């Protein structure tokens, strides 16, 4: 088209791996594709279902009910006086997003292998697409959060200002892990099998069903480097107005940034050979 500036694009393709970080100019050129990929994922997700987007509510809702019965009523886990339903809801909503985004991102390259072998576009769009697409489910599931918080008459505090950066952190975690796992999964399909129990175990590594203060003192330092801990503790403090425990939030954020950066570098190093190792 005539109105597009005649910028000359020079591409050099050469042998060998590079340590280059993302080519942001190129990603910018492909932003429309990114938009359509995300939009495709959203449109197709609940195609030919009866309940449609209600699944985005049902899925976390069932988990909340089950966990509230087992851990709240039967095991009677101590939650520092917070009603268990409220306690678990504020954690399960971001957890559901993170686990689903992580699983989808890790399988994104394997599922897209048909396209991978036929056309070039920045490969990182594959794992990034579910990170954005799953936000739709997340937003819908916020309905549960609002209902539960209204029922328990939670008063909002200034802590709520932390929520937007926490949502970014919540996206950063599956992005970093997703890039790592996607790049590994295309070479080793073991990832797919490991993923199902990895996610099941992962839920117990974060204070989703129990409080972080239940962790014995001497382990807390190492525990706090789990990026999930930062997101979950952050969500709880921000929504429920409980004191912000920075010692549980800062280390996890550092880890998630490191996982993101290393994931990006590993992905970039590997992306050239994806097609040859499918």
């Amino acid at each position, binding site marked *: *088209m005539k109105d*597009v500036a005649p910028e*000359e*694009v*020079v*591409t*050099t*393709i*050469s*042998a*060998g791996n590079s340590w280059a970080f993302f080519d942001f100019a190129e990603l910018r050129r*492909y932003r*429309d*594709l990114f*938009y*359509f*990929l995300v939009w*495709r994922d959203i*449109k*197709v997700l609940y*195609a*030919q279902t009866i309940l449609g987007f209600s699944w985005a509510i049902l899925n976390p809702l069932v988990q909340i009910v089950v966990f509230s019965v087992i851990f709240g009523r039967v095991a009677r886990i101590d939650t520092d006086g917070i009603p268990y339903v409220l306690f678990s809801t504020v954690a399960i909503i971001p957890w559901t997003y993170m686990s689903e985004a992580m699983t989808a991102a890790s399988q994104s390259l394997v599922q897209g292998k*048909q*396209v*991978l*072998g*036929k*056309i*070039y*576009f920045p490969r990182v769009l594959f794992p990034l697409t579910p990170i954005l697409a799953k936000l739709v489910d997340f937003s819908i599931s916020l309905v549960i959060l609002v209902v539960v918080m209204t029922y328990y008459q939670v008063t909002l505090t200034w802590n709520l200002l932390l929520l937007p950066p926490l949502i970014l952190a919540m996206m950063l975690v599956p992005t970093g892990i997703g890039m790592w796992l996607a790049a590994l999964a295309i*070479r*080793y399909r073991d990832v797919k099998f490991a993923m199902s129990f990895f996610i099941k175990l992962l839920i117990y590594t974060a204070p989703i069903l129990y409080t972080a203060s239940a962790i014995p003192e001497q382990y807390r330092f190492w525990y706090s480097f789990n990026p999930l801990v930062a997101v979950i503790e952050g969500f709880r403090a921000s929504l429920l107005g409980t004191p912000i425990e920075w010692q549980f939030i800062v280390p996890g954020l550092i880890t998630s940034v490191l996982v993101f950066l290393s994931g990006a570098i590993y992905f970039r190093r590997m992306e*050239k*050979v994806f*097609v*040859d*190792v499918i």
Partner: protein
Amino acid sequence: MTKKAITVDNLSKVYRIGLKGATNDSFGRAMIDFARSPFSNYRKYRSLYRFSEDELAGNYVGEDILWALKNVSFDVDQGDVVGIVGVNGAGKSTLLKVISNITPPTIGSITIRGRVSSLLEVGTGFHPELTGRENVYLNGTILGMRKKEVDFKFDEIVDFSGVEKFLDTPVKRYSMGMRVRLAFAVAAHLEPEILIIDEVLAVGDAEFQKKCLSKMEDVGKEGRTVLFVSHNMAAVTRLCSRGILLSGGSIIGDSDAHSIVSTYLTSGMGTAASREWPDSADAPGDDAVRLRSIRVIDTDGAVAEGADIRKPVGLVMEYDVLSDDQVLLPYFSLTNDEGVLVFSTIDQDIQWHTEPRRPGRYTSTAWVPGNLLSEGMVYVLVAMRTPHRKYRPIQLGDAIAFNVIDKMEGESARGSWVGRLSGAVRPKLDWTTEYKSAEDAPGD
């Protein structure tokens, strides 16, 4: 001064092909191997894209190493339309994949100046659950268009595809043909500076292919750089100004398209309309008979790559009979593009059905009447049969091929109909239609 759009410099691409591992005959060995398998699997998957210096050294002949491309260098000027030809496995598709940035070169580099679109497949990324309209946008952006470019061309794309009515129907309910049309319509409206196309014209019916070919011709005329892989020699000569002939991963010819196509065809690499065996010793056959040449000719006796659908074509086989004790019956079998056997034919001269031929050179010609074959490629099996069912001194599948073309000048079975007319044969039949006006019709 013309600028170089593509510079390919000493490009090589090496693949590791799987080798069958040693098999075990004892249970104990098998258990040990099972325990070790994670390590050997890890090494195996790692070695897929890593090659040692020894392996890449020029003279290394590794059993599990395949040089899909070897030391390929060429330049393409801006505005050139280059056809890449070669037999299957010559490295054409690998070359396009490397230039399209899909797979990395093992050695060497490529520099590309300009926006590239590659079309290695029609309809990449089509999603069955999305509607036609949605897929146009998705596929368009996958091929490198911006959303506003798709907006701008949307009506043209839909017109070209001819599926207006089904735009809001999920693509999973489309017929294969409709899907291909829509996908090609999107691809045909790409406007990159450099276009890379792999054999995509091989899809769709003849009429749609014709439409696509003329669209491609326009693309070439607009001064865009095009790299085009095809087995359709007629398309290569028609569209391309220059040809590159690949064989075994290396360039063995780089010249104007016409001479490259004829080199390709006469070298016996492609299925050509004419083949000969100058040396009797290499010729197909045995002590009784040897094939010397085969060709497809038109009514003027000239070799016909492309045969006019309305005119007869001759299938000619020249052979030397070397002994006088065999009953020999020349035989041709015609197969179309879809692998359908159209018909077989055997020497009609009843004399030779029982009588052995005397030694000497024979030339037998079978004339296929005009208006019998359908449009498209026809592959000819050439054989020498004998009364013994199992003894065939000569049998060559896909020995020669020709393209039946309807120039749409009337007189063919099409008349002036331009739509589909499917079937393995297309005879021009006598049609009669009786007419009675409404008044004359028997009343009821």
